[in-house]
Structures are given as structure tokens and as C-alpha cells.
């Protein structure tokens, strides 16, 4: 999918603006008729990347479906902060069942709609990385393999943040979590573990897989919109900064996510039917240290002494990702 990246000189970010653009190129959020699908007043932390990502993803999906959308949500931060009984932040039909079954619940919804001949109504499943890449992987893989007509969005903050920042299958090496503490000879999460849910999704040869981050919300909107134009199983994996779990400043949520891309640690790409079709090139390549240093979860790599050996291993991972996806211009 060829597309022109839009640069907003007045802000220095890729995220906001829009008055210089044609209406159809503008962000969903700059449209006065935006749905506010995840409306204000919820209890997410200050600077929560997941709340931001979910709002952009859902609003884009709502616009793409003409407001004909049902959401199935996994247990997790997004569910807890948005629906403390009797309140709700959701302005669409929404169901939460369990931690590990959101993809299967979405499958059931899609099946019911098909049985009733309501092909105007679309289905979205969503959850965090724990609910998606770990406990929900069986149901997710089943949904992919059957090519059920569901868009599943994973908001990846690289850990079990709702339960108090424990390691997940998406936690990066060396990161401190409550179950991979910064103690012992190899502090933080171990190397050589973890998995890439987008690559697993691609192995199912489903119609569409994409990654995105909250650093480029216009890109996230565009990918969700594109995904909604397709039928069958689709997967969008969004890197969302977690100030609480990552130990980053709440004002730095966008910046940290951008650093994840510009260091090459998080590849932003699209794939169709199992093949990569587009990658977002790195604009100004930075060493991984630029990404690691502002996050307290990596503080043990810099104090009491700098662990150049560990940082070099992380750099090697970034280099490999850059090579593998061709992220350099």
C-alpha cells in the first residue's frame, strides 16, 4: 500500500494538525463528527498510551464502518479503567467476557451477525499484550486460522500492567518488571525469549497485519481504516507507552514510542496474506540508548555502572530488526 507520509512542520510531530489538508486526509480526531468512542472521564493513568491508541483506533473504525461496530474487550487496563460499574466510557456496543477469550467472543459476535444477515455491522476485538500474545493466543490463532471477519487490535505495553507490571511474552529483554526484577547477575528480563505476535499473525496468511505506535496516530488511523475496508481476519499491533510500567514521564508517551521506532527496536510495517507490503522507514536513526535511558525499567543498565555489554546486546537486536525489515531509508 503506497502512501505519502504527511509532515506537519508547525508541530514537529506526525500526530496533530490537519487544517492545511483536504478534509479526507485529515485525522478522524480533527473531524467535528468524531465519535469519541472511548469518551473522557475514564480512569486511565496520566499519559496512558493504551487509552490514546484505543481512542484513535476505535474512532477510525467507527468512521470506517459508519458507526456500525461492536467491540469485544479482553480483561486488562483498558477494560478496567473504562467500565467501573455503573459507569462506562464506551459509546458503542461493547462486551467484556474474560482475559483470554476476546478473539473467540468476537468470532461469536461475527457468526451471530452473519447468521442474522447483518453484514453492515462490523466487529472489533481488542486487548493488551497479556490478553493477546499470552493467555489469548489460542483463541487468537483460531480466529486467524478460520479467517473470521474480525479486526483484532492489540495494545502492546510490553507487560501485565493491570496486575502490577509483570513480565509477558511481549516484554523486551533486560526490562525490569515485578517478576523479572533488576537484581542478580542478569538483571531484568532474560534474552532469547518472547515472541512477535505480528509475525505469528502473518504466518496465518490472513488478509492484513500491521504494526503502529502512538507516536504516529495518523498512521494508526490509516491502518485501521484500511483494515476495515477488508473482510476476514485482520490484526493491528500497536505499541503503547505505559508511563507506570516503563517508568517514563507521562508527558513523554509520544516521544518514547517514537524512539522505539527510530532506534529500530519496534518495526512499523504492513503485511498482506503473509507478505510484508510496506515498512515505515526510520527518519533519524538513533542508538538504542536514546530509547532505554529515559525509562526507569532500564535504569539498571546505567546505574550504578553502565552495562555496555547488555546495551550492546539490545543494539544487536535493533540492528537485526532494521536489517530484517529494511527500516533504513
Amino acid at each position, binding site marked *: 500500500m503506497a502512501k505519502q507520509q504527511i509532515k506537519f512542520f508547525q508541530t514537529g510531530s506526525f500526530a496533530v494538525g490537519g487544517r492545511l489538508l483536504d478534509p479526507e486526509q485529515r485525522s478522524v480526531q480533527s473531524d467535528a463528527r468524531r465519535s469519541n468512542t472511548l469518551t473522557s472521564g475514564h480512569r486511565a493513568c496520566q499519559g496512558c498510551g493504551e487509552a490514546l491508541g484505543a481512542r484513535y483506533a476505535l474512532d477510525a473504525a467507527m468512521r470506517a464502518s459508519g*458507526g*456500525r*461496530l*461492536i467491540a*469485544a*474487550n479482553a480483561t486488562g487496563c483498558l*477494560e*478496567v479503567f473504562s*467500565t*467501573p*460499574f*455503573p459507569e*462506562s466510557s*464506551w*459509546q*458503542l*456496543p*461493547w*462486551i*467484556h*467476557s*474474560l482475559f*483470554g*477469550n476476546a478473539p*473467540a*467472543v*468476537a*468470532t*461469536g*459476535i*461475527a*457468526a*451471530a*451477525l*452473519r*447468521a*442474522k*444477515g447483518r453484514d453492515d*455491522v462490523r466487529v472489533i476485538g481488542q486487548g493488551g499484550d497479556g490478553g493477546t500474545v499470552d493467555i489469548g493466543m*489460542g*483463541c487468537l*490463532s*483460531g480466529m486467524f*486460522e*478460520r479467517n473470521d471477519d474480525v479486526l483484532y487490535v492489540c495494545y502492546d505495553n510490553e507487560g501485565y500492567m493491570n496486575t502490577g507490571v509483570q513480565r509477558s511474552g511481549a516484554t523486551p529483554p533486560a526490562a525490569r518488571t515485578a517478576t523479572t526484577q533488576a537484581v542478580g547477575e542478569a538483571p531484568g528480563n532474560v534474552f532469547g525469549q518472547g515472541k512477535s505476535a505480528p509475525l505469528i499473525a502473518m504466518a496465518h496468511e490472513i488478509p492484513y497485519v500491521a504494526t503502529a505506535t502512538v507516536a504516529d496516530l495518523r498512521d494508526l488511523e490509516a491502518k485501521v481504516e484500511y483494515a476495515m475496508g477488508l473482510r476476514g481476519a485482520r490484526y493491528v499491533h500497536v505499541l503503547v507507552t505505559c508511563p507506570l510500567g516503563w517508568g517514563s514521564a507521562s508527558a513523554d508517551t509520544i516521544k518514547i514510542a517514537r524512539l522505539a521506532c527510530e532506534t529500530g527496536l519496534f518495526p512499523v510495517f504492513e503485511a498482506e496474506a503473509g507478505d510484508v507490503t510496506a515498512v515505515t522507514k526510520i527518519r533519524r536513526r538513533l542508538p538504542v540508548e536514546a530509547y532505554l535511558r529515559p525509562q526507569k525499567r532500564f535504569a539498571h543498565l546505567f546505574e550504578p555502572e553502565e552495562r555496555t555489554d547488555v546495551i550492546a546486546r539490545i543494539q544487536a537486536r535493533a540492528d537485526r530488526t532494521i536489517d530484517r525489515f529494511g527500516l533504513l531509508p
Partner: protein
Amino acid sequence: MPRQLEGSVAVAETVAACRPDVICAYPISPQTHIVEGLSRIVKTGGLGSCEFLNVESEFGAMSACIGASATGARTYTATASQGLLFMAEALYNASGLGLPIVMTVANRAIGAPINIWNDHSDAMSQRDSGWIQLYAETNQEAADLHVQAFRLAEELSLPVMVCMDGFILTHAYERLEVPTAEQVAAYLPPFEPRQVLDPDEPMMIGAMVGPEAFTEVKYLMHAKQQMALAAIPQLADEFERDFGRRSGGLLRRYRCQDAHTVVLALGSVLGTIEDVIDDMRDEGVAIGAVGLKCFRPYPLDAVRTALAQAERVVVLEKAFAVGAGGIVGQNVRLALSGLRPRVHDVIAGLGGRPITKASLRRLFEQAVDDRLGRGMTFLDLDHDVVARELQRLEAR
């Protein structure tokens, strides 16, 4: 017209007559023939736009049922044994959300040791999951209970489990009447969901409920199950009127008039029990039986009334609480608290061990002669084997 059919086929055809919108299938013996039958009916166009989902696990099956039911679809699945345990988390979710899913449980033992044969360990392990549990005595009843189950589930907005003995019923050929689509249509109105995910009227299902309201939600679940105690006999009466045969209800008494000894059991073993009772009645022994058709909600008053006049009650059950005792037995004691009858727990038929007339005859004679112990009795237990193993354990 009566036909000679396998139990699973009869259930599959009956479920099809109930016009489900979504069927979720995951294979596990001895439930497989049911979903195989349904898959054929769906694929040959017998159920119109019905969706047949081959899912990746029982957890996925119940989860897809949850999504489908919450979207207003009449939803069905079937499972057994380990599969029921694997969907346990989703079972509680379906009942907590008040989703009227109907599921067949082809009762089978739970491992280890792995065993595919019949007992009631699976369903009994989920007795407190908030699902209504109906137990079939025959294949005719198994088929009929599914029609009643959809009606009951949808009237009360609660999930219903129809339990039928694995292999003994599911794989047995019997002469029976499969309810026709026309008959069912007259008995079972179209599904009108209480709550439905629909963009025309957005609603939220599955909020996070804290200590301030959780008790009330659970109390209301209990109250709804209690309503089923009135609805189940009414639906059985109505079914009898429409279909011309009796199936379901809370319990069934068999030759209990003036019985000093009453045997209470669930499921297909009642047929054998009744044969033994016939023989003993012929010899002048005052013995009868009570077949419990509905275990959840627990029909406490009906059990109390049915057993109050007996001297002793033998509860014959195909599961038990390890380290504690009989499960149904404890529930029977609850119903009889303060009343005269002594209650004996007899555990029988575990992992498919045949429950023979001869064994039952010996057991009932012991009961009548007051030679049954107060604790649990294991029918046909090989005492030599267990004594030898216990000796070894003690020698360590």
C-alpha cells in the same frame, strides 16, 4: 413416528429442530457424534443461515457461544469431561452475564487416570457454575430436554446444561420420537434476547463490579435460578400436553407408595434401578425410587416431600467429593434435615464401571436389612486391591 436412532443423532436432530443460529463445535468423546450430526445438517442447508464454527478449544467454544448469544443468536454447543473443565472459566462468565446458551454434556469421567467412560464427575464439578443442570434418563428424554432447555434458557435468560450419560445414552440405539420442527416451533417461540449488542442501541455487557454491588448481582442470579424451580415443572407439563409424552420436570417418583427404602439417582442408571425395584416389590419389599431430573437449581422442597416418609434413602451417585463424600447425598441430607430418613451415600459406576442388576440387588438388600454403613459405600469395590495398596502405603 418412532425411529430406531442413536442417542447422539436424536439429540442432533432435536437441536436442529430448535433452529439454532450459531453452533460451536470442538471434538471430545463421547459428545462427538452430536456435533458431527449437526455439522452435516448445517452443511446440507438444513438450518438455513446457521453458522457452524469449528473452534480451537472448548474454552474457545464457550467463548464464541458467549459472543454469539450476546449478539442475539440462539446458541448451542456440546462437550464432556476435560472439555467441560477447560471451559469452566467461560461457564461462570456465561451464567454471570445471563446468556441463554444450551449445551449438551455427554457425561464422562475426569482424569487422571485418563478415562473416556461414563460417570458424572464432569457435570458435578460445575454444579455451582450458575448453569441449570437437567439429567436425562433415556434418549427420548435427552432429546425432549433440549427442546425444554431452549425454552427455559430463553425465558429466564440463563444457560442450561442437558446432561446425558456418555456412551450409555449417546451411543445407544433406542426407539424414539424426534420432535419435529413444526412441533418445536409451536412450543419454542423465536428467541427474544433480554440484552443484545446492537449499534442501533449501544449497550455495555460485562462491566467491572466492585464490593458495593457484587453481592446483589449474585443474589439475583440465585433468585433467577429459584424461579426455574417453578418454570421447569410447568414447561414439562406444557411439553406433555403438546408432545403427548412426559419428559423432564424436577423429579420422578417410581413405586414410592409406602416405601420404607427409597433409592435416589440421576440419569440412565434409573432404568436398571427400576428393574431391581420391580423384582423386589414382587417379593413384597417396600422399596421405591426417585429420579432427580434437575440438580441445579436444587429442588430442595420437592426432594424433601418425595423422601420424607421413607425410613432410609440410598443415594446412588456417579461422582463424589474426594476427601469428603457424596455430592448428591449431601444435598439430600440438606433437604431431609430434621426428618427421620437415614441417608446412605453409594458411589457407583465410576469411569464407566457397569452397574449391574445383581450388584444393585445385593446393595438394596443390605440397605433394607440395615446392613449399609453410615459412611460412603463404593459399589463393587475390589477390597483386595485397595487393601494391598493401603498396606504398602502404611509400610513406608
